[in-house]
């Protein structure tokens, strides 16, 4: 069964078609990647999935439920509660809060007590907060951030900030984790670490992962599926080896002219 499915979903910003009617699916448990040059519409796809934008046409399904259709989308926080978590291309941590509190914020949907308990600080509040603290500590330990739990997030080294964003996303207990360029700005060693991390996250947490990536080695090394976008249209959707040998993809990456692609972009339809 598919965890995520795009059915001809599209979005236009004024005259610009950022994503032409796009159809693809991510089967449950898969580690898939979206690649493509800058401005291809990759981040926009993430924003469609997470309810930041509503599509102007088509539908998006998550776990067998329609979450968005033309002009309508569930609110981002509701989607988060349903099991969609993401990181951002430009890190968006809660800079002034501690590392630990950044993660604790992600329990908003599962905190399990209400206003009355919060105001009275009753037993339920104490139990739930203890549970949240425990889960948070465990996650931080797993990612080697336990020693830095009390540091302000903005004071973390860059690589740790990217990791913390992943930890924070995992704390929402997602079914599908969306990672927007998780290794951007990292050196080869850090990239290697994060690559291994992503794979182990998928296995340990038993979730599906969809990531946007520029490092081809990472994509080809760990992903089971690659979706290629260019100019908002689907270029390819296949296993890594096949994508690597796809003439359109090769042309796009080498910057060579591709009349078929130009025609597809102009009319807003997929090539594949």
């Amino acid at each position: 069964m598919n965890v995520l499915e795009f059915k001809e979903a599209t979005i236009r910003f004024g005259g610009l078609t950022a994503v032409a009617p796009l159809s693809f699916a991510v089967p449950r448990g898969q580690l898939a990647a979206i690649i493509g040059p800058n401005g291809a519409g990759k981040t926009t796809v993430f924003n469609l999935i997470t309810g930041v934008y509503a599509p102007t046409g088509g539908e998006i399904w998550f776990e067998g439920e329609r979450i968005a259709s033309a002009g309508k989308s569930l609110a981002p926080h509701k989607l988060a509660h349903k099991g969609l978590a993401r990181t951002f291309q430009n890190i968006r941590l809660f800079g002034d809060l501690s590392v630990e509190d950044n993660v604790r914020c992600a329990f908003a949907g599962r905190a399990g007590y209400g206003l009355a308990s919060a105001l009275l600080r009753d037993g339920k509040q104490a139990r739930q907060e203890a549970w949240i603290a425990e889960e948070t500590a465990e996650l931080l330990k797993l990612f080697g951030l336990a020693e830095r739990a009390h540091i302000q997030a903005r004071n973390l080294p860059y690589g740790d900030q990217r990791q913390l964003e992943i930890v924070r996303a995992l704390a929402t207990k997602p079914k599908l984790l969306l990672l927007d360029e998780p290794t951007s700005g990292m050196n080869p060693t850090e990239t290697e670490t994060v690559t291994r991390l992503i794979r182990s996250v998928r296995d340990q947490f038993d979730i599906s992962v969809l990531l946007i990536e520029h490092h081809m080695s990472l994509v080809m090394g760990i992903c089971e599926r690659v979706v290629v976008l260019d100019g908002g249209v689907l270029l390819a959707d296949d296993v890594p080896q096949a994508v690597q040998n796809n003439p359109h993809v090769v042309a796009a990456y080498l910057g060579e002219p591709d009349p078929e692609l130009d025609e597809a972009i102009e009319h807003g339809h997929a090539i594949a």
Partner: protein
Amino acid sequence: MNGARFADFAVHSRFLIVVSGIPSPVSLVMNSRSLPAKIALSAAVVALLLGVQAMLGRYFNEYVQQIVLYAGINIILAVSLNLINGITGQFSLGHAGFMAAGAYSAAAFTFYVGPQITARFQNEAAGSNVVFIVALLLSAAAAGIAGLLVGLPSLRLRGDYLAIVTLGFGQIIIVLITNIREVGGAAGMTGLPLMTNFVWVAALMVLCVLSVRNLAISHLGRSMKAVREDEVAAEAVGVDTTRAKVLAFVISSMWAGVAGALQAHYIQSAHPGSFTFIRSIEVVIMVVLGGLGSITGAVVTAVLLTGLTEVLRSITGAFAVGLSLVLFAAVLTLPRYRSAMRQSAMGWLLWLRWPLLSGVALVAGFVFGRDWLEARVAALRFVIYALILIVLMLLRPQGLLGRGELSWSSLRRSRSATTPEAEGASERSEPVDEGVRGTL
């Protein structure tokens, strides 16, 4: 340090930690978990307050009592506004408007309905207390509903728009109350019963601080802080940002309404002039000076500014405040000139040029313009407020306490942090900012 001395040191520092943890009554109430303990401790606190009130009445004149009550009311206002402006990171300029909503609804109740209810009671004091409790609940409800009505549509907007909307709301409330004849119109409502006393103010102040701080350390408060930090990221991790903002707004307005009711039933009148934009600004200044997001900071500055208002009633007071401001600024800027001072005597001059200049100007003003200033001492107050704000924002933009809190646990933590080797330097490696660490 050898092993035995190390162990000795560790035991010693533990002892210090335990001693510093001997808690105040309020933090006992705050931290106790069981309901009976909470009730018993609350009763103890009320008894304590009654004792203090008796003492206040016996040993202090009415003027001192008045300042104490005003300080308490200002604490309620500042701490509650801090929930919106500090913790949730929105910008409301309408606190006086919500205060007015509470003051007028409570006043209308005690004035028109109160006497009938009191008449039914054998014991007049009991009757008037019941009336006041209902009036206070009413003030919270009215201000809370006003907060909901203003907040729901406008909290979807970004910060600056919210400031404008709340500003407009404050004006609308003023126009409303000046035009309703039943509540006195432009002349205001007079002849309200005297209901507010130290016990009411102190008890409600404690409740207000407790509710805001309990909220702040709950998941709801964390969501509010997430909204302050980054709304997009907050939504992405499951925070209902609109709900967090509306909740902060409504609870904050409710407390503003209660403060309004307390004020009206202390000065025994409600006047549109008490709830203008200037009043909102006063509260904003308290919150900003104390450090946006710090509950302790809001409490401290509410008390300081209440005292300041009194000091500034006389020209001598204004002069003293001006001079201390200059000294304060001089001390705060000292570190910047330290290296220059080591190099030459010019460094000293460099450091002292502004303090000296403004000091001379102050003395000159005091000596030559005394009469002129004396006639304008009321206006002078706002000049001094503005100067304080400017000095502090230039020299310590994060406010007195930043986002830190002063509490027993933070003191304990700072003590343990000064002896990290005793704590094994493991889990307690958090940085400590001048003994005041952010627990928020």
